[in-house]
């Protein structure tokens, strides 16, 4: 496994309170990592820092073997490390335009975008929704559009924030299927969850964010038990 991204001495405080102080966090390609922890432990904040959406107090970042400041790393993360909110935001336009958004930002020719969008719609099983306004979709359909919109950019890292919370069983199964497909395509995935047992079958590793530190748990169903191994 090749290391894509490494954060060292990653510290983050919120309103003067230390949220976490992580010695090392390494992300390898083609892996799916579950990130669990109690509410307020900082799971979402950690994912947002990795995505370049929120600045840490301090950190040393190494991306593809190159040492960078967080600000430079954040610029490189745009479109390469995609963060999906717990309830993904879809722009007030058609499903097709939502999926094409990132490719348009890259200046890809329209004909090529059209081909890729058709393929992404088919991949997510939402071809019948292509002309619908994205705001009119159900929660499960929105999630599929968000996955397709992220996948079309071929990201190296996908950061999923509680992707299956408050979903019915059918939508949840669809989300798992898409996470599995993305993992098989070689995307590195970090999933923040407080229900690790539901994702255990997809994950290669399980990290627990607890008391401001990151600890590795044994993967698999037993990983939901609190057996703590220092992570590095």
């Amino acid at each position, binding site marked *: 496994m090749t290391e894509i991204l490494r954060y060292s001495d990653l510290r983050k405080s919120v309103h003067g309170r230390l949220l976490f102080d992580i010695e090392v966090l390494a992300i390898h390609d083609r892996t799916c990592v579950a990130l669990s922890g109690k509410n307020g432990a900082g799971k979402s904040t950690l994912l947002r820092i990795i995505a370049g959406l929120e600045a840490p107090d301090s950190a040393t970042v190494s991306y593809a073997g190159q040492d960078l400041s967080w600000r430079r790393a954040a610029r490189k993360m*745009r479109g390469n490390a995609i963060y999906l*909110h717990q309830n993904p*935001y879809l*722009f007030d336009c058609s499903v097709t335009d939502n999926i094409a*958004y*990132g490719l348009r*930002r890259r200046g890809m020719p329209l004909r090529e975008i059209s081909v890729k969008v058709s393929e992404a719609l088919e991949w997510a099983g939402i071809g019948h929704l292509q002309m619908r306004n994205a705001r009119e979709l159900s929660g499960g359909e929105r999630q599929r559009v968000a996955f397709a919109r992220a996948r079309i950019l071929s990201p190296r890292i996908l950061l999923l924030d509680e992707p299956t919370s408050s979903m019915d069983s059918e939508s949840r199964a669809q989300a798992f299927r898409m996470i599995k497909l993305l993992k098989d395509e070689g995307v590195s995935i970090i999933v923040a969850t407080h229900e690790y047992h539901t994702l255990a079958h997809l994950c290669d590793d399980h990290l627990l964010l607890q008391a401001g530190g990151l600890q590795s748990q044994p993967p698999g169903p037993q990983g939901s038990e609190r057996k703590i191994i220092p992570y590095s």
Partner: protein
Amino acid sequence: MDSLSAATAESFRLLFSGDADLWIIIFTSFSVSVKAILFAVPLAFVVAFLMAHLRYPGRRAMIAGFSAMQSIPAVVVGLTVYLVFSRSGPLGDLKLLFTQTSMVIGQALLALPMLVALSHAAFQAADRRVWETSVTLGARPVRAFMTLIHEIRFGLIAAFIAGFGRIIAEVGCSMMVGGNILGYTRNIPTAIALETTKGEFAQAIALGMVLLMLALMLNGMLAFFQGRGVMSS
């Protein structure tokens, strides 16, 4: 009563016969106010966005300041611009007093606080996920800003229309810095004020009707752009 009826009938005649003086006044009014609003809107949106998006010392005071400046009378703005551009003022050498340019500047300054305050409310109410989703999908800050504008467009259009409504109908600033010169700086409100003092009601009523029509149109546009008028799910 008869003279009022006659003046109203005459005002219709002026409007529909294409009276040159009347239409020049209407054209001047729109030309100046459209330029002023187009000048003020981009600046207002950027300032409002920065106030809503960034955390910096003095931010709250700035928000309160723009909110308070909405109630500055047009005539005070006019006086300020007059003093700046008067012969002995700091920008007197530019010789802009009693020109359409000075009217545009005055009206832009008049609209700016309202545009900033109303658009700030729209930016403040925007979902933070819009910006984050744009950025995570690879948008640069300018593009993410444009996406955000698109997502909150109804609030911004309302700000635009309110700002335009404020300047198209104001008298004080235009009168002071424009000088009410026929065929050059005389606009609808200053012409109405002048014709009324002269007892020439026909032109004043005709111009008043134009302003009323405009008010109705602006409100119609606002209703149209507000779309379905329902909360998004």
